[in-house]
């Protein structure tokens, strides 16, 4: 895969998925505490989202950060716009803004992120979460 192909794959993923999360690992097996918390917030709201693991190829992160101008992972996009990284997503989760943005009901109880597992290697692919 060329860098251009990776970039256009990322652009399409952002365009085609209303809620698109770029993370380390996958929602069921996050490979970093920040990614775990961000995926956990989306899971707690029960919204559908697509997630892409950036770990399999370092160029995914390079191209993503080049596109978004955001240096860290995770990155959450909603309706094609960068919402933020884990700090912003968690602030918005706690304030109820994230639920409002995603048209979800705020959860009754706070969630506990899953313990951080060992990183896993996977191929490039999208995991669609359909609850």
């Amino acid at each position, binding site marked *: 895969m060329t860098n251009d192909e990776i970039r256009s794959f990322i652009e399409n993923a952002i365009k085609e998925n209303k809620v698109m999360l770029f993370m380390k690992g996958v929602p069921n097996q996050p490979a970093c505490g*920040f990614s775990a918390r961000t995926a956990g917030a989306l899971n707690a709201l029960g919204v559908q989202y697509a997630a892409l693991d950036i770990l399999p190829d370092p160029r995914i*992160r390079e191209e993503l*950060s080049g596109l978004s*101008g*955001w*240096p*860290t992972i995770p990155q959450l996009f909603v309706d094609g716009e*960068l*919402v*933020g*990284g*884990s*700090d*912003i997503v968690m*602030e*918005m989760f706690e304030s109820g803004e994230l639920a409002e943005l995603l048209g979800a009901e705020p959860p009754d109880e706070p969630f506990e992120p899953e313990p951080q597992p060992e990183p896993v290697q996977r191929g490039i692919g999208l995991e669609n979460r359909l609850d």
Partner: protein
Amino acid sequence: MPSSRELQEKIASALPGADVTVEDLTGGGDHFRAEIVSDRFEGLSRIQQHRLVYDVFGDDIGGAIHALSIKTSTPGSRI
């Protein structure tokens, strides 16, 4: 390896007048948390506020500084 004091000084000099607290979360010099109160954040979105802080460190973010957790606020909004 950067220290929380170095991060604190860099942010403070880039955002004059800001109240900056930096904590080394693991003691390992790679996971930091910064809390910054600055009137420079007035009128900016959270994304723009965090970008101002990330810009201080350029390529060090994701490099020497593996993770930098950021909390920004303005003097007026501080609780």
